């Protein structure tokens, strides 16, 4: 990074103005971008617009019943936020298993979303929290629900001159979990992940939302399983049926990390474990 000139805006307007130019690209933590920088952009390296100086974009804000995160909030900050621990347990769990301490200290939520990987660990939690993204450019702002943001692996609706400027969701104080499987205990990309958010009322489960990571071209919801579960008492039978249903909703492939059959089966296993309150295995 020292070798290349970077642009270091200190206000959002300045940043958006610069991003409206040619061959420029925003950089947050750099943990995705720098890995592929030379390989992907080697021929004509873009100028990097360093977002770090945009102080307000680092904040976690609470207004009434809504929480909004600046895109520069890091995995570590999410992991250690008492507020989020209560209001978005699945997001906290995802942030705390990803990467390694060093990666979590740099990796940002905005980068995780913008990178658009189906195995991005913060994305399934944001799906089940019904998160809204605010996208800004010199032309103005727009708001988009997270599940309308992704088009395919690495492909999003984000325009070249746009920044993600906020990620917000309702505080629900409901139950939630995030579970994943990966090849090793640190610095590993998920083979499969499941996130959920739900309420328990008089022994029955309601308001259930489930999202799956790394088993389709983008993170997906599991609407049929959600519908089946809602209003049910959580017993072994119900959990087995739910596990069966959700396997049919996953559309995994075989790749270098795992095989399709296994991934499909594990979606069911992780859902059952999550609903049973079994924590992430070490």
């Amino acid at each position, binding site marked *: 990074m020292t070798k290349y000139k970077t642009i270091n805006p200190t206000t959002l307007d300045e940043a958006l103005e610069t991003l409206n130019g040619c061959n420029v690209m925003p950089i947050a933590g750099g943990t995705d971008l720098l890995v592929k920088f030379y390989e992907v952009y080697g021929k004509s390296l873009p100028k990097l617009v360093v977002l770090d100086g945009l102080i307000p974009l680092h904040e976690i804000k609470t207004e009434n019943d809504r929480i909004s995160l600046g895109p520069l909030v890091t995995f570590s900050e999410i992991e250690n936020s008492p507020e989020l621990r209560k209001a978005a347990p699945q997001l906290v769990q995802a942030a705390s298993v990803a990467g390694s301490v060093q990666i979590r200290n740099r990796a940002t939520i905005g980068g995780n979303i913008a990178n658009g990987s189906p195995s991005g660990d913060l994305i399934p939690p944001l799906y089940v929290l019904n998160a809204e993204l605010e996208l800004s450019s010199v032309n103005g702002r727009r708001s988009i629900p997270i599940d309308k943001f992704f088009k395919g692996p690495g492909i999003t609706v984000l325009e070249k001159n746009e920044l993600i400027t906020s990620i917000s969701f309702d505080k629900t104080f409901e139950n939630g979990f995030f579970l994943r*499987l990966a090849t*090793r205990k*640190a610095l590993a*990309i998920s083979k499969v992940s499941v996130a959920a958010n739900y309420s328990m009322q008089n022994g029955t489960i309601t308001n259930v939302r489930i999202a799956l990571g790394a088993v389709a071209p983008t993170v997906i919801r599991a609407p049929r399983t959600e519908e089946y579960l809602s209003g049910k008492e959580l017993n072994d039978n119900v959990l087995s049926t739910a596990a069966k249903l959700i396997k049919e909703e996953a559309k995994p492939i075989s790749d*270098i990390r*795992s095989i399709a059959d*296994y991934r499909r*089966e594990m979606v069911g*296993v992780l859902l059952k474990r999550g609903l049973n309150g079994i924590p992430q*295995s070490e």
Partner: protein
Amino acid sequence: MSVVGKRVQRPESITRVKGGGLFADDSKYHGMLHAAVIRSPVARGIIQCINTESIIKKKGIEGVFTCKDIPGKNVIPVVIDDQPLLAERYVNYVGEPIAVVVAKDRETARTVAKNAKLKIKELPAILDILEARNHPDIHIFGDDNIFKHLKIRRGNPSSAFKKCDIILENIYRTPYQEHAYIEPHSVTAIPYPDGTIEVRGCMQCPFYVREAVTKSLNLPESKVRVIQSATGGAFGGKEDVPSLIACQAALPAMKLGKPVKLTYDRTEDMIAMSKRHPSWTYYKSGVTRDGILRAVEVEYIIDGGAYSTLSAVVLFRGTVHAVGPYRCPNVKVDSYAVATNKVPCGAFRGFGSPQVLFAAESQMDELANRLDMDPVEIRRRNLLRVGDETITGQKLKNSVGLEKSLDKVIQVSGWTPGGCKQDGVGYGFSTIFYGVGLGAGGKHMARTGARVIVHADGSVSFSVGTTELGQGMITVLSQIVADEIGVPLECVDMIPTDTSRVPDSGPTVASRATTMSGNALKDACTKIRNTLRSEASEMLGCSLDEIDFDNGLVSNKGDSIPLIEVIKSCSFKRLSLSAEGWHTSPPTTFDDKTGTGDVYVTYAWATNLAKVKVDRETGEINILKIWSAHDVGKAINPTLAEGQIEGGVLQGLGYAVMEDMKSDSRGAIINPEFSTYIIPTAQDQPEIVPLIVEEPYPDGPFGAKGFGEQPLMGIAPAVANAVFDAVRVRIRELPVTPEKVWQGLRNK
């Protein structure tokens, strides 16, 4: 003795932790240019055209060199001279070097090399070893694609199998393993006005590099000087390969008269550099009801890739270790190193033995299960003891600490047969052995030199031909020199390994540095000691044999003088306190027709016990603890010996449960990065209990024998056996992944 056997710290440790040390890529030289390699994009083809003229016209390019520019032989000398330095008419694997581009800066060289236009007519390739062996039409090597066939014939297996109560026949497979040294390959070649070429780089075997450079550049050995720079890990991956890289830098350096540096990037390194041979093993073993191993038949095939490199000797070690550390009167082993159109495989910690030991030790466990015998008991009934013969008919005279290692593991772990355990928890054993040194497979190189100089101020420098690779050789050899001369450890320094300092000392492989260089140093030190002794006897006025050297003092009964005074007196009298040492190994033999002989000078021995917990739903394997006991003869430095155990165990765990390098249908490696080739991290390290057993080897320095490779070798079968113990699923193909365990559980 004052420091041998002590836990002294490696002097480089602190520097390394702080990121210090001068590694190959850190040095710059005046006028230095950078090289990059143009490589084959296809697995097999005929080169029709390399447009060097268009390359040379590019901005910043100083030269481009093909096989036509090589003044000497276009060959990398290893065992069989089949591998060219730069491809001539044919290319035989994806990544094969075709030409070297040199530029003022590295980026330009790499970009031009990457985008070079080549005309290559693609030919059908063979990628699978079973297909390649005796392929009717496609001939990569000879007319059968077999680099080497070895056999062992002992007793009469076919009639012995008839008398067995239980016979097991299985197929085992193992994949590539990548060395994953922290420092990718790098070398700089520096030409001098007198025609000398100096080569500096990371490497295990400076004398191999020297031979390769002299042959390809047609220079006498006196005109090539090879110096090892601080080397960031090797594990066998820097054994033969640096010869190739050094020549790729030395050729343009000589032609252009300027220093040329060549550093591979990680991806290039992983695509084109050597790896552990993938293997296929057919294993048949038979026991009688009493648990005695009666007969074993093995067919062992390793995937050599496109050129033979070290495959013949890798195969040799695998063949000799094929039955594990057991008595077996009836043995038939047929082993083959086969050519395929893939990257050449080479040396890797264990050298052809981990693959076949995975089969042998899994097999032993299955036999125990079928006999309803515990895995320790079956081993006890068969393991080698003093007086026994190995499968090559070598009678073991001494230093057989196998049973002691087994006892130690049982004692420390508290393991009991049928002991009660949690659901999903399992224990798995492996007992293994390791032929120390090059053995009969490389006996012509089983010699080594050393030089020791005691300076007038009492400091001592020494040179050896073996190399420090992170294993702690400098420390261990310094300990030996300190005790042999009688000076404190702080006074001893090693001069970086340099081919101009000592005669050809062979390679730093086969766990041989401590024993070989240790013995050569002892030889040199003895000569110096004799001079010091006679001087001291004059000074103390006593006879030669009444003198003791200890702790910087020379004494005779109550009378003593500081050693430094004796050294000064020698210096004053112009007596030489410099000496050369030399060591050759005791003889070893191997008869090609029968596979019999005294193959290695001695053996190291080990027992591993793995404790795992398997998740029955996800198939995930949590390694809870590893006990690993090794008979090393004598631990010159117990901390470093334990370090070897811990590191080897972790590398073995990677091989056992996660590392999985794959090539695609066109023979190209599909995961040549650490984001997709997954190795263990610090988080994946279980509790490792290193245990040392010392059954002295009389011909080793202070009784020591080499064992640096052994800690990796038996981990995979111990884990596979533990997984079986936990959930009754037997995995016969490495790595033992959750996916495979889950499939096994589902198919039950």
